[in-house]
C-alpha cells in the first residue's frame, strides 16, 4: 500500500512553524544582547550593574577589563527627577 504522505503535511507544517518562530526569537534576543544569551532574574543590584556597564562601554551587555575607566565615566550618571 502507498504511504499516505499527505497526512504528514500538518506535522511538517507544525515543525516548520515552531522551529522558525523559536529560531527567530533566539536570533532576535541574541542580537539585542551582543550575541550572548539574555540575562534573567535580575534584581535591583544586577540592574544597577547593567546601567554601570552601559556607562562604561555604551551597551548594557558590553564588557571591558580595563583597570581605569574612561574620563567621561565619572560624570555620566543619569539623574532622574520627577516634575509634578
Amino acid at each position, binding site marked *: 500500500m502507498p504511504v499516505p504522505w499527505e497526512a504528514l503535511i500538518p506535522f511538517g507544517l507544525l515543525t516548520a512553524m515552531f522551529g522558525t518562530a523559536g529560531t527567530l526569537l533566539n536570533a532576535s534576543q541574541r542580537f539585542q544582547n551582543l550575541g550572548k544569551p539574555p540575562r534573567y532574574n535580575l534584581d535591583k543590584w*544586577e540592574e544597577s*550593574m547593567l546601567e554601570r556597564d552601559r556607562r562604561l562601554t555604551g551597551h548594557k551587555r558590553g564588557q571591558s*577589563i580595563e583597570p*581605569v575607566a574612561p574620563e567621561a565615566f565619572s560624570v555620566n550618571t543619569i539623574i532622574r527627577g*520627577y516634575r*509634578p
Partner: protein
Amino acid sequence: MSVHQAGTTSSVERVDLTPMPSEVPQVQELGTTSAPLKSAAFFIGAYCKEYNEDFMLCKNESREPGHCLKEGRRVTRCAQDLITKMRENCLSQFNDHWNCLEKNNQEYYLCRKPERTLNACMFEKLGLTKTIPGGGLQGQQVHEKANPIFKAMQK
C-alpha cells in the same frame, strides 16, 4: 479615551557634568565591568581585605557621602592594582572565566571548570585563594565540592 493623555507627573533625565571639587584628591575610577568584576570578586576580597574592611567600618559610622572618600579612594586603587596584576599574570584564564559567566547569567555554579583553572593560576602566580567566608550550610567551600547538587545540566 483613544487619544494619548500625558500624565500629570513627568520624569526628566539629566546628566550633571560638574566635576568633583578641586580640593578632593582625584582617583581614576575602576573601568572593569560586571562580569570580570564578578570573576575577580573573591580575589579582590582576599587581596584588598584591610582596605575593604576600613571602608565598611567607616561607612558604619556615618552614611553621609562625603565621610568616607579617603577610604573609598584606597579601595578603588587596590582593586585597580589587582586587576592590573590579574591581566599580567592570568589573562587567558581570567578571560575564559568571565566570558563563561557572561553566557550563563553570571552564575558561578555553571562555570566551575574555567573557575578551577583561574583559581589554580591565581594561587600559583599571586598566592591568592578564593575562600567563601563562613562556607555553605555545612561549612564547606561549594566551589571545591567534587559532586555538587546544583550544577549545569549537561556535562
